[in-house]
């Protein structure tokens, strides 16, 4: 228990709409340990970002946590009000968003945004906070910090801005960082630098990271464990090695088969027929069954679930594995 930083159990996020209640995240259980990087993969709309936002307490209304618990180092945070969450966000949970071009307020100097965040969460006075801001900027690899600290966001390149965003996430030395597609908006050549930086900084500090991405390459390089999401549900959890090399869930298998860089020997890329169902049209039973080559009657009837108790271990939400009849 002691080194489990994030413990999500049976989390359910719902969006009431005019047509009925949509379940964006359905019964998700996850654990991340100190210093561990958990990759969250899945297609757009699979609920991975939504899970991240639920943890940060930043679900856009009318989205809400309908069931389940979120614990941060043992403290329940899913039932806190916004005022209480202000002391969690930025202080105990850092966040990195997808597009560094829009994450920073264009009208404030980067130094001011850093100093603001530092002073909100620590007792440092303005000059100490400025020193800390410089240290952080230096750590994330910004050159000529003394000059750059007084620059505005538009004076930095995309990669540099994402470094600033990482520095902002680290301001108060949080226990957990939720990184929502941190490299998606960046040039491919910059992506590797940013993931390497994030990985190094979090390893040094023992920060737990929830790395949301749809890029399996990033996951393979960076994460320790992977959680694969499909249509708001968890499809598979396990170590990177197991999930990438020995996927248990047919969806994960298809996902791995569709990545060019991971399968040099295969001539043709595999692809999964069909597309992920919309949230208002999830089929009964396993959400993947219409696209699955192995689907049986039970798959069309009952939802396979990864038990909360197994959140840490490597399992797949597939009747084939759950019932031990491996193909």
């Amino acid at each position, binding site marked *: 228990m002691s080194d489990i930083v994030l413990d999500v159990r049976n989390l359910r996020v719902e969006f009431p709409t005019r047509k009925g209640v949509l379940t964006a995240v359905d019964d998700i259980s996850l654990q991340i340990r100190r210093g561990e990087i958990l990759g969250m993969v899945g297609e757009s709309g699979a609920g991975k970002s939504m899970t991240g936002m639920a943890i940060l307490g930043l679900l856009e209304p009318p989205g809400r946590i309908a069931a389940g618990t979120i614990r941060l180092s043992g403290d329940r945070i899913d039932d806190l009000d916004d005022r209480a969450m202000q002391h969690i966000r*930025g202080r105990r949970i850092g966040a990195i968003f997808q597009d560094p071009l829009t994450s920073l307020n264009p009208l404030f100097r980067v130094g001011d945004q850093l100093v603001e965040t530092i002073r*909100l969460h620590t007792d440092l006075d303005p000059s100490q906070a400025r020193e800390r801001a410089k240290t952080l900027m230096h750590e994330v690899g910004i050159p000529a910090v003394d000059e750059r600290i007084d620059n505005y966001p538009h004076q930095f390149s995309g990669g540099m801005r994402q470094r600033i965003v990482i520095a902002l996430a680290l301001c108060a030395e949080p226990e957990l960082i939720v990184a929502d597609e941190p490299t998606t908006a960046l040039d491919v050549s910059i992506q590797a630098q940013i993931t390497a930086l994030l990985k190094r900084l979090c390893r040094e500090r023992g920060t737990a990271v929830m790395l949301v991405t749809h890029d399996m390459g990033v996951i393979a390089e960076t994460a320790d464990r992977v959680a694969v999401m499909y249509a708001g549900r968890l499809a598979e959890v396990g170590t990177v090695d197991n999930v990438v090399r020995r996927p248990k869930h047919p969806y994960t298998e298809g996902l791995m088969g569709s990545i060019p860089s991971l399968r040099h020997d295969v001539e043709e890329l595999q692809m999964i027929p069909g597309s992920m169902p919309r949230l208002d049209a999830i089929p009964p039973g396993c959400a993947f069954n219409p696209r699955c080559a192995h689907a049986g009657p039970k798959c069309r009837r009952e939802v396979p679930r990864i038990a909360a108790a197994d959140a840490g271990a490597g399992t797949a939400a597939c009747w084939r594995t759950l019932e031990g009849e491996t193909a």
Partner: protein
Amino acid sequence: MIAFLLKRATNAAFVMLAVALLAFVIFRFFGDPVEMMVNEQATQADRAELRERLGLNDGLITQYGRFVTHAVQGDFGISYRNQQDVMVLIKERFPATFELVLVATVISLVVGIPLGVITAVYRNSRLANALQLGSIVGVSLPSFVVGILLILGFSVTLGWLPGFGRGETVDIGWWSTGFLTPSGRAALILPSISLSTFQVTLVMRLVRAEMLETLRADYIKFARARGVPTARVQWRHALRNCLMPVITLTGMQIGNLIAFALVTETVFQWPGMGMLFIQAVTFVDIPVMAAYLMIVSFIFVALNTLVDITYAWVDPRLRDDTARTGGGNG
């Protein structure tokens, strides 16, 4: 930055030359200046002599050139009606209008911006809906009706505030100010409220629309993710990103306010430029009208130029000298 300022100033100068041409045409061709100035007993010789003295026999270009040269020096000729230097009349009246417009602008910002933020942030609350409804009334009520209602309420019925005139004024050089005496300040209240009603609602609706847009921005969500308290996110991070259009609007509207002031000044018998202009129109006092046109246009153009410069101040992205990455010598 200097190149930017020069460019702006040149543009402004051209606009003013065009306005001067218009004013000159009005002055020169709307009726015969000589006929307006001499009395009925004047002989033909007197008229010819005046015509020569005024330079009306010179070429049009020469005359226009002279008009511009004089206007630049603040010389708009002699009022037909009062036989006084036009500039002296304007100088007497300008402070009254300026102070009225200034107070009305301050009211429109100080009241309009917070109301806009509140209606955006609590957009589904009863208060916000009431304010929205009220703003429609504010936009649609003509300013003279507001003025008359205010006079009726606060000065006729309640007797709290004066309903006409400027009260006592204090002269500082040629500037007469009403700010320094209690009666001067009291006299400012009703006219400036009346003049600003429309502006308040305009600013409020603009800020509301901009805030709704800005509050959806990524950097707002990210600021919340950094743990910045909600109120600070709204009033500091979001509001500042909304101010650009407010600056534009305010800059443009100050010109409109001066024009609107004409109505308000008439309702409140405010001795400003608007009143002067109305009187000038009644007496076909062409030099005063031409001068009014020139001065109001000058204020318009100056404000527009100022607005452009203020942009650069609020939005660092528009500053030429910071566009160079890493530039540190501002």
